[in-house]
């Protein structure tokens, strides 16, 4: 092994050499710098590999030929090696990135950069407090120099503020150091820890610690740091964020050991305040670099929390801390580097990335990594962290962390939304090959560590899951044209179904059919798309992969990972819609919020078991069981868009593309329902403070049904109408589940199937119509029946089925519903459900009437039927609906038997044509035949007596002896249910929307208010620093 001292010596030597070389040899200088850093990275890598392979143990390096305390010693272990690799690689990549700037600035800049990297390495390596001080001061000075790399004139001011701040920090550090020395007689950190002379309350230790923590720029004493992030050269910011912070973290980590755990709460507290505060303040930022600065601070906060929780993390400590640190470092460096190729500084200027899908891929990778989505290390780390926190009853901390993570996701995904949507400025991006290479390297590194962490994870590597791989494979196939990709996608889904068919139980099978057979069916409609449709297939397949994994998940980890994957996939899908950006963000926030609740629930249930089996949910301790149930149920209900957490759905479904809406509505929503089924099968009834939670769910289901229907009735936008209708339909399903009896469950499954078929079909037809007419507003359509007869038939069959009118399949649902409620224990929610029922007619009639009936508009006179590929799946759905109406047993019989093992009472009997329950009977085929015969007889009779009917045109209506003026004024469509709105419109007051808006508004106002704190004055920042030290000390003392 090359000596660890080379991390100090080599850059130092190179720096001096650079100074000695004559002026004007920029190329040589640059190559030398590059070489040095590359060499250092190699050395670090070799150390790391050696440690990883277990070839060597942690090594001490002694200087000056004697042992501490009389000399300085360095220590290198696995963590240090990793840190060094990170530092030097970041340095190397930044140097590559900075090629032009360094050429301009000359050898001195390169030397300073080398010194900077050297100092950081020193911080990581050294075990001597004074040495640490020296390296920190070196970083400070180097930073002061490197800030000047920026072309931004404002960087000067920022740099000076930085220097002022560091003066105060260094004074604190020095005083703390000397008193520590005074107390312990040594400057060796290990010696201090070993000596045991330093008590937990030691002011000196506090001063040193707080000084090091201040180096991490904790909220709120960090105004100076933000200014640097904003104004410095992005490559330098990348180093500052990824490398310098890492080094400081090593130092803090080391020093905390001295106090033997007594200062851990301090670290946790500062960390959690930073994590929450910085994320909150980031909400109102528009400047990309500043927002990255906030995010860096937040991540450091999170890491401080992890460090502070070291006492309970045990063996996982390095895995968790490393995961979060690496995720942060790579993502943040990557983002800073990306910001360097963007010309303007507003978040929306990043739209320039749209120029190349690869940029978007990199951006998405970094964002996903920062948020901690699977398969990135942050995901594994957060999972473990949350589980361990929950296992040790640190729930408040856990919730604070999740809340802040949600805030972080909010601003990051909002940013992502800005980038994906809107017109890009083609000149908004400067592409230099070296910069792109660096960014690409970061992207590769991101996936590399994702793989690495998966390998290390107890729960198994997510990247080994075939569905996920298949989805990711579509990223590589983006160059193909739509038809090929579509065929491929369809065959992948069907293939996966065929392969796994035998392994599904009847319950899973129903969902599997919907996902893996229904999905391809809807995908048929994607054949109409032209071009390559970049981004569609990976997102779709990601969603399907998540769903496919979800239904077979055995452990809570698999389940949660699948859940997150399908959430990401569907988020990207939703984001593809024209005006979907605000809805996509509310979707992802609600989904992640729900997911975090689920995570908490799983963590509570697992009680420290990092690989908790879902089947163990039934054995959760009774004290936490209702809470687990509650958290998981709310999590699932955000996905089914139960009332209260439904506000993301209408916009998301309405604005999505024509073939995406049916997938979202028909398939995606079922994920939540599946989760609820699993939950309720395993956990049964739970009551909290004497309230039966299934009873609450009954109410939620009933209210969702009622309000969803009501709101659907008042929509002008056809797709919104359908979206609200989905809320209601899933309300019914939820209601069925919450009945907790055999038929209730059968009802829910019936709704699952029915809702999939007819809602997919309706979304497709409405999508096709909207595509042709160029609008989704129903009152602007009308009279399309003759022009789009097939779409009309699909909608007609669809609405008959939705409304539950015999003889179509919706009736089966109603019949089972009535039989199920006969044994219901709670009757009050039923009243709501009863009221909801007929309201469905309102919106259904409106849907079909205002689009297909009534008056055809001028501009639509020459419309054609929807594209073949959109009609085809609709017709298949029509056929499915008919078959399902005739022989519901085909799908339900097996499930009925399957449910018997959970609910032995109240199964149906399937003798012959008639389906019999304990209370009543129903014979679908007889009904169909009877209705058919009556109908056809009467039709024939009418045809006979009315054979001479004259076909007339749309204005041949009696109009009080006048004639219609124009179709627009004759088509009664807008505000169709005006009197109904007068009567019951008060129920549709958007109270829920207002509630969530108010929360969002409050958070943003708070952030807006709080950020006034950073008034830009360096002296104020100094006061902040001092006040932070004093207040933290007082609080820490007060606590201990």
């Amino acid at each position, binding site marked *: 092994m090359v000596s660890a001292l080379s991390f100090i010596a080599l850059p130092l030597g190179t720096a001096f050499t650079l100074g000695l070389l004559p002026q004007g040899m920029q190329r040589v200088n640059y190559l030398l710098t590059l070489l040095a850093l590359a060499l250092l990275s190699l050395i670090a890598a070799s150390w790391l590999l050696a440690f990883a392979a277990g070839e060597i143990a942690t090594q001490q390096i002694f200087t000056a030929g004697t042992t501490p305390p009389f000399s300085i010693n360095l220590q290198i272990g696995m963590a240090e090696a990793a840190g060094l690799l990170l530092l030097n690689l970041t340095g190397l990549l930044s140097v590559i990135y900075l090629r032009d700037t360094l050429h301009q600035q000359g050898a001195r800049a390169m030397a300073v950069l080398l010194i900077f990297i050297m100092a950081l390495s020193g911080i990581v390596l050294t075990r001597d407090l004074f040495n640490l001080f020296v390296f920190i001061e070196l970083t400070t000075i180097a930073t002061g120099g490197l800030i000047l790399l920026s072309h931004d004139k404002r960087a000067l001011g920022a740099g000076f503020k930085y220097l002022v701040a560091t003066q105060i920090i260094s004074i604190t550090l020095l005083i703390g150091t000397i008193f520590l020395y005074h107390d312990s007689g040594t400057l060796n950190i290990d010696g201090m820890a070993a000596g045991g002379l330093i008590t937990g309350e030691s002011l000196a230790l506090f001063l040193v610690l707080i000084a090091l923590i201040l180096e991490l720029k904790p909220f709120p004493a960090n105004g100076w740091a933000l200014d640097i992030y904003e104004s410095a050269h992005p490559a330098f910011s990348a180093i500052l964020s990824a490398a310098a912070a890492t080094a400081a973290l090593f130092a803090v980590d080391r020093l905390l050991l001295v106090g033997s755990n007594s200062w851990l709460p301090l670290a946790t507290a500062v960390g959690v305040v930073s994590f929450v505060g910085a994320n909150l303040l980031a909400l109102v930022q528009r400047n990309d670099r500043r927002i990255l600065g906030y995010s860096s601070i937040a991540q450091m906060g999170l890491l401080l929390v992890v460090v502070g929780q070291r006492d309970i993390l045990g063996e996982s400590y390095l895995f968790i801390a490393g995961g979060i640190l690496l995720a942060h470092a790579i993502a943040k460096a990557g983002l800073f580097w990306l910001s360097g190729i963007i010309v303007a500084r507003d978040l929306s200027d990043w739209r320039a990335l749209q120029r190349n899908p690869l940029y978007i891929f990199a951006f998405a990778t970094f964002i996903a990594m920062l948020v901690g989505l699977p398969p990135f290390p942050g995901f594994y780390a957060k999972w473990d962290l949350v589980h361990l926190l929950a296992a040790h009853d640190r729930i408040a901390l856990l919730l604070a962390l999740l809340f802040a993570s949600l805030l972080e996701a909010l601003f990051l995904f909002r940013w992502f939304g800005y980038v994906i949507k809107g017109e890009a400025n083609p000149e908004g991006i400067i592409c230099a090959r070296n910069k792109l290479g660096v960014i690409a390297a970061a992207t590769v590194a991101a996936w590399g560590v994702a793989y690495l962490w998966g390998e290390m994870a107890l729960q198994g590597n997510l990247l080994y899951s075939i569905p996920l791989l298949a989805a990711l494979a579509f990223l590589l196939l983006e160059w193909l044209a739509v038809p090929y990709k579509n065929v491929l996608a369809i065959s992948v889904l069907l293939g996966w179904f065929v392969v796994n068919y035998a392994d599904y139980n009847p319950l899973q099978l129903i969902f599997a059919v919907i996902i893996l057979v229904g999905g391809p069916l809807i995908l048929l409609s994607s054949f109409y798309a032209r071009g390559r449709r970049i981004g569609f297939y990976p997102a779709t397949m990601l969603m399907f992969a998540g769903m496919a994994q979800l239904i077979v998940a055995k452990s809570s980890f698999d389940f949660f990972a699948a859940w997150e994957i399908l959430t990401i996939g569907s988020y990207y899908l939703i984001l593809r819609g024209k005006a979907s950006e605000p809805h996509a963000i509310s979707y992802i926030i609600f989904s992640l919020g729900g997911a975090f609740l689920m995570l908490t629930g799983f963590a509570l249930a697992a009680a420290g078991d990092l690989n908790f089996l879902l089947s163990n949910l039934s054995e959760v301790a009774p004290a936490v069981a209702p809470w687990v149930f509650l958290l998981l149920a709310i999590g699932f209900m955000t996905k089914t868009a139960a009332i209260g957490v439904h506000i993301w759905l209408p916009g998301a479904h309405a604005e999505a593309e024509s073939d995406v809406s049916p997938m979202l509505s028909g398939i995606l929503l079922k994920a939540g329902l599946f989760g609820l089924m699993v939950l309720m099968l395993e956990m049964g009834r739970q009551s909290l403070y004497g309230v039966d939670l299934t009873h609450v769910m009954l109410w939620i289901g009933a209210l969702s049904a009622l309000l969803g229907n009501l709101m659907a009735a008042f929509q002008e936008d056809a797709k919104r109408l359908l979206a609200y209708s989905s809320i209601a339909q899933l309300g019914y399903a939820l209601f069925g589940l919450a009945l907790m009896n055999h038929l209730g469950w059968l009802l829910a499954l019936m709704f699952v199937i029915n809702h999939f078929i007819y809602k997919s079909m309706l979304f497709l037809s409405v999508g096709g119509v909207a595509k042709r007419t160029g609008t989704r507003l129903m009152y602007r359509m009308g009279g399309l029946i003759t022009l789009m007869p097939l779409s009309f038939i699909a909608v007609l069959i669809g*609405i008959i089925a939705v409304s539950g009118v015999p003889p179509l399949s919706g009736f089966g649902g109603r019949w089972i519903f009535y039989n199920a409620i006969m044994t219901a224990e709670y009757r009050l929610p039923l009243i709501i459900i009863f009221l909801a029922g007929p309201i469905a007619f309102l919106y259904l009639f409106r849907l*079909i009437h205002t689009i297909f009936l009534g008056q055809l508009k001028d501009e639509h006179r020459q419309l054609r039927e929807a594209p073949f590929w959109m009609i085809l799946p609709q017709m298949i759905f029509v056929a499915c609906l008919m078959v399902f109406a005739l022989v519901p047993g085909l799908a339900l019989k097996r499930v009925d038997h399957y449910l018997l093992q959970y609910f032995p009472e109240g199964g149906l009997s399937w003798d012959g044509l008639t389906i019999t329950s304990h209370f*009543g*009977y129903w014979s679908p085929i*007889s009904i169909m035949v009877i209705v058919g015969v*009556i109908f056809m007889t009467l039709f024939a009779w*009418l045809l006979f007596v009315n054979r001479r009917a004259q076909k007339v045109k749309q204005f041949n209506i*009696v109009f009080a002896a006048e004639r219609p003026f124009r179709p627009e004024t004759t088509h*009664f469509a807008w505000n169709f249910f005006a009197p*109904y709105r007068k009567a019951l419109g008060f129920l549709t007051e958007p109270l829920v929307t207002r509630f969530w808006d108010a929360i969002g508004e409050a958070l943003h106002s708070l952030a807006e208010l709080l950020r006034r704190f950073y008034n830009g004055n360096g002296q104020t920042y100094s006061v902040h620093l001092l006040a932070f030290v004093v207040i933290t000390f007082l609080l820490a003392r007060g606590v201990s």
Partner: protein
Amino acid sequence: MQFDWMQIPYSLLTLFIVLNYGMLLNALIAKIAARVGRRHGIPIWQNYADLLKNYGIRSSITHGVMFYLGPVFRLAGGVGLLLFVPTIFGSEMFSNLSFAGDLILALYFVFFGTLGMALGAGESGHPHAAIGVSRGLSQVTTAELPFALAVFAVALQYQTLSVTDIVAAQQGGFLNWTLFTNPFAVAAAMLGFLGSMMRPPFDVVLAPQEIPIGPPTEYHSSYLALMQTNRMIFPIAKIVVYMNLFFGGAASWPVFFIKVFFIYMVSVLVGVVFPRFHVEQSVRWFLVWAVPFGIIAVLMV
């Protein structure tokens, strides 16, 4: 119960009897309403003349397929509803086609005709048709609610959804009728009944003075004839459901005629006295006055 070919002529016989009874009953009721207004009123056979005339009209127009099918849906709904419910209790002959489904089928099949008619009227392109449908659907949402609650209460009471079983449970003296065993349910159902009979105060759907005459504005000749036929059958079919659920059913045709007449008269008596409600007024009225009865009924069973 299973299907038997003999059930077809039996069902047709039921249909024939009910159709004729409906013709006469409607005329009789028109006459009664006329007498309230001190008029002589129409001849008792007037409905036959009107129906025949409309079938006899030579020309007709059509606005399209759904327009054409609307009345077919309408009448099929009426006929189907009639045939899905046993008419005469204990009679194999007049239990019609009730083997196909139970009470729930009847409950939901009511909407079959309504929906088809609404679609047909919609295709005529006449704004009044759409306005009428909008009003009708709005009103039905709350008018059906007390009835649905009452049905649920009755089903709970007798622990069955089979109409025959419900009637059977009410046999043995009129005190066994649901009317007396579960008065709240019956109260709710009868108030809901008012809303579904297209009579004042709940006839804003047709409202001849303002939206002449709602959904059927464009319908004429044989279309109208089909709808008239339905108008004769459908209320009776509906009343049969009420009779079976709440008033002990009918064991013979005379009892059937009398019970149907009196149940029908409830809506007529209310109708001749009250003026018309706005949609929002009737929606509120049902929620405030009828639904609480239903809730009590459901909770008390």
